[in-house]
């Protein structure tokens, strides 16, 4: 290398040979950059390992120790940790007899540790775990005394295994009846009550009025979405572009539009949400009488179902299990206040005789716990049981947010890159969008709560704020003005187009500016017309008046929209980059074939940019799924066993609050009454959260890879 230097420079002038700098030997930058990467990888690997190891450990049943202290006290539990001073942390459970569920025991004070063969850990429906020795399975006789069905630990365990599944099934049935049938009857009674209340205020809410309206509006949304999907699929399969001159295709478009319009009109007519019917005194009496009768019928039905449930529960309560703990020699009680009665068999979720289980047996318990974790709802302030509603809430919210944000972001980016005249304006917008990505997420939460929940949601519920709606004359005037400005802006826009082959003249520019201004005015007027209409009193007014708003409170819909807003910059930036990366020669080729701008975008630009767009959607999903702070304000709750999806109309209950894994982790770790017991669940939930986000990303990445293969020659 040094020899070459002599040759450089001007001809004939020799350049002094320089010595290699020490810093150039051994390439220090290689070491520096390499070690930075290694450091990053190490940190990530540590995080992943920690989460996986701790998360998997939670459900593995540990051996149950019976510890005899020097003082003679006996403690039973599972050792979970030890510290440097030689103290052991035992999970001892048995909270109902007034002890902490975790206990530090000084190793020096331990006289004896044994692992009794029949020691069991009970997972119960309430009050956490119970450690002890099984004594008997008993049955309550008619006179209230208990008759033992088994004696001794081994026999008891066998008897338990025999009787437990049926007891559980019966209890599950009673519970589901309580929830489903009683819920339905309650719903009916509530409707009757609402209607009576409405009639007494002089308004006919009609049969299940508020509910039916909600049903109609939601079904309309669903049908339109499904219809749009079908149209999209058909177009895709037959390969037809919008806006081309094909006759049949035009027919299809017109037919689709007409259908949607017709559907909307019928929906409006059926729902007539703005129409509240007054009732006369006579009609009121009829309604009240009718409804009171209905209430009575429902009440009778309620009693009948309740009696059935009671009977089943009574049957259930006959079988008892006696498990005695060693410290005070008390058995696990049926309830904390009834310490003298042993617990019911059906209250046991799982009985684990950990010390006599082989590895296979422990594996079975491990998977059975995982299954419960994934498929059941939470118990015990979320520290036990499962996270099924949490998973559903998280996945649903993530999907909804993706559905909202992707089309919006893509369309916005399309305008910004393909249609808008590049210049100062677009630069400012780009900077603003990028800045939006840096706004702290809690700000979005506050905005979502204030705007979506309390403003838009309240409007959906009750219509314009009382007293702010315009007089009908003024309203129609504004309505007309909005239409006039819209038409005028459209016309100005057309006239403002410069002649082909000529740059815009002053007149063109003025008209274009006027058009923009006009559109601005139109939007303002349209918002006013909507916002202050005297003809709309909300879809769910009756309930909101009683202080239980439907959309005017935190819920899945608003949470998804808030997060969609939060992730919008990600999608816009990614899409813009993807669109810019489509070579101009493709666009020229398409224009050269006589394609219109939209056809070119739809057939060349969008397919070419699709992988990039999907990357944006993936990033948005990952970011949105991981957000917690805004969700605390706009929808995530500690506990809501009612899933946002159900088999009853309108199927997707976007107005309900929901549980979210991120918030769940926070709640487990920091809001739990028994934080020691919750800690392993924090790890497990974290592991699950990671897995879900990873799975969502992986799915999107796979789709993208498939598309990318189709778009490029790589598929050959």
């Amino acid at each position, binding site marked *: 290398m040094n020899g070459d230097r002599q040759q450089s420079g001007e001809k004939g002038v020799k350049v002094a040979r320089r010595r290699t700098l020490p810093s150039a030997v051994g390439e220090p930058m290689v070491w520096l950059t390499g070690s930075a990467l290694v450091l990053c990888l190490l940190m990530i690997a540590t995080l992943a390992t920690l989460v996986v190891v701790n998360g998997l450990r939670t459900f593995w049943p540990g051996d149950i120790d019976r510890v005899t202290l020097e003082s003679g006290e006996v403690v039973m539990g599972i050792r979970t940790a030890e510290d440097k001073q030689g103290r052991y942390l035992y999970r001892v459970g048995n909270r109902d007899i007034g002890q902490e569920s975790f206990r530090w025991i000084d190793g020096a004070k331990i006289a004896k540790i044994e692992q009794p063969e029949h020691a069991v850990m009970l997972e119960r429906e309430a009050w956490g775990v119970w450690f002890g020795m099984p004594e008997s399975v008993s049955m309550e006789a008619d006179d209230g005394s208990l008759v033992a069905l088994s004696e001794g630990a081994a026999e008891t365990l066998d008897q338990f295994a025999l009787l437990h599944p049926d007891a559980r099934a019966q209890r599950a049935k009673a519970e589901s009846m309580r929830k489903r049938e009683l819920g339905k009857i309650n719903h009916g009674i509530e409707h009757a009550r609402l209607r009576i209340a409405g009639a007494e205020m002089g308004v006919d809410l009609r049969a299940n009025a508020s509910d039916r309206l909600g049903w109609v509006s939601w079904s309309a949304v669903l049908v339109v979405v499904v219809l749009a999907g079908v149209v999209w699929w058909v177009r895709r399969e037959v390969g037809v572009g919008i806006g081309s001159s094909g006759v049949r295709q035009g027919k299809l478009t017109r037919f689709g539009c007409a259908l949607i319009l017709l559907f909307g009109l019928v929906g409006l007519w059926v729902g007539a949400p703005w129409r509240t019917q007054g009732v006369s005194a006579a009609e009121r009496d009829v309604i009240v009488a009718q409804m009171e009768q209905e209430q009575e019928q429902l009440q009778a039905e309620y009693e009948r179902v309740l009696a059935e449930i009671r009977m089943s529960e009574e049957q259930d309560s006959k079988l008892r299990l006696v498990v005695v703990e060693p410290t005070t020699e008390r058995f696990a009680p049926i309830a904390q206040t009834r310490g003298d009665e042993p617990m019911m068999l059906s209250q046991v979720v799982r009985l684990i005789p950990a010390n006599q289980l082989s590895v296979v047996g422990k594996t079975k318990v491990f998977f059975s716990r995982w299954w419960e974790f994934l498929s059941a709802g939470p118990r015990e302030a979320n520290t036990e049981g499962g996270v099924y509603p949490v998973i559903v809430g998280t996945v649903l919210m993530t999907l909804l947010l993706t559905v909202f944000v992707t089309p919006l972001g893509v369309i916005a980016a399309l305008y910004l890159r393909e249609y808008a005249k590049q210049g100062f304006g677009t630069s400012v917008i780009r900077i603003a969008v990028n800045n939006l990505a840096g706004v702290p997420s809690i700000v979005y939460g506050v905005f979502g709560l204030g705007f979506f929940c309390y403003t838009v949601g309240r409007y959906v519920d009750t219509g314009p704020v009382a007293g702010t709606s315009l007089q009908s004359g003024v309203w129609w005037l504004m309505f007309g003005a909005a239409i006039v400005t819209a038409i005028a802006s459209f016309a100005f826009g057309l006239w403002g187009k410069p002649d082909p082959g000529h*740059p815009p003249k002053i007149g063109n520019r003025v008209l274009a500016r006027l058009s923009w201004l006009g559109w601005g005015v139109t939007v303002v007027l349209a918002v006013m017309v909507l916002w202050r209409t005297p003809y709309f009193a909300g879809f769910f007014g009756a309930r909101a008046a009683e202080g239980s708003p439907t959309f005017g409170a935190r819920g899945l819909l608003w949470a998804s929209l808030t997060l969609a807003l939060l992730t919008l910059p990600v999608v816009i930036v990614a899409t813009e980059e993807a669109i810019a990366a489509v070579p101009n020669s493709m*666009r020229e080729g398409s224009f050269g074939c006589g*394609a219109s701008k939209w056809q070119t975008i739809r057939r060349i630009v969008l397919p070419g940019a699709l992988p990039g767009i999907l990357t944006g959607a993936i990033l948005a999903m990952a970011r949105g799924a991981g957000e917690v702070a805004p969700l605390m304000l706009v929808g995530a709750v500690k506990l809501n066993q009612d899933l946002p999806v159900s088999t009853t109309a309108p199927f997707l209950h976007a107005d309900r609050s929901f549980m979210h894994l991120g918030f769940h982790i926070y709640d487990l770790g920091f809001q739990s009454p028994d934080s020691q017991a919750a800690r392993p669940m924090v790890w497990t939930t974290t592991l699950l959260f990671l897995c879900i986000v990873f799975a969502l990303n992986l799915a999107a990445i796979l789709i993208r890879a498939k598309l990318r293969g189709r778009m*490029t020659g790589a598929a050959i």
Partner: protein
Amino acid sequence: MIEAMSEKRSSTKSAVEVKAPEAPAPTSPSPVVPGGMGGEPAHYDVIDAIRRGESVEPTVHESMAEADAVIQSDDFKLWYGDAQAIHGISMGVPRGAVTALIGPSGCGKSTFLRSINRMNDLVEGVRVEGGITLNGSPVYEPTVDVIELRKRLGMVFQKPNPFPMSIFENVVYPLRIDGERRKSVLQEACERSLKSAALWDEVKDRLKESALGLSGGQQQRLCIARAAVADPEVLLLDEPCSALDPVATIRIEELISEISERYTVLIVTHNMQQAARVSDYTAFMYLGRLVEYGPTGDIFQNPKLIETAHYVSGRFG
């Protein structure tokens, strides 16, 4: 390298002194040894006038007047912002023949070609004056539907630009955007067009595969098939071989000759031999002006201007 240097010269006025030192021979196109009489400055009446920015009457051969013009431009001028790229070109493109536009880089030949199907509309700040007609109908009128206009013309670009879709979809793209959905029609058109582009035998078994997997020459023939599938009135070829190797170039040239039996072709080319081989008429342009226009044989064998003679024999530009 040499080409790049010569391009630079022809487009900068300061290079006038250094270039073309051969003897002026205003009336005779007989070959002169380049640089044979070193030091003597070039003396081109027409070119010098153009360089000075004067308006020069183009030399159009008499036989051109008889030709039936598909495209007729009438004192067509074009500006990119403030810079004028075309200074009033009036010429007709004869029907059913291949017409070549030649000239040094920056002479406006591509711009002129792209003005015919109004691809220049896509460039910001373009302004035109004068008119162009296609089969008698105006191209630059506010009432013209530019989409319809482009459908009447087929265009092939310098670099092959097949779309990232299957070979079949590439070829039938112009039909697809017209809303044609009948499989039989599309298949028939695809086969016909690929056959006329001499590509059918090579790709008939892999029509469903991506067009991006084809070689450069095949891609360009695919683009020609795509341009021809909707039966355009004129095919516009913008240096179709400049990105191809010699073998692929020859195939394309053969294809142009074949295709010219059915279509009117207007081709821009840098390659004089190519113009001589494929075209029936040749127009020589310089700095946005038409210099000489006539039958290819005359332009190459017996041009009226010394500039043309020197340009086609490679001693100038």
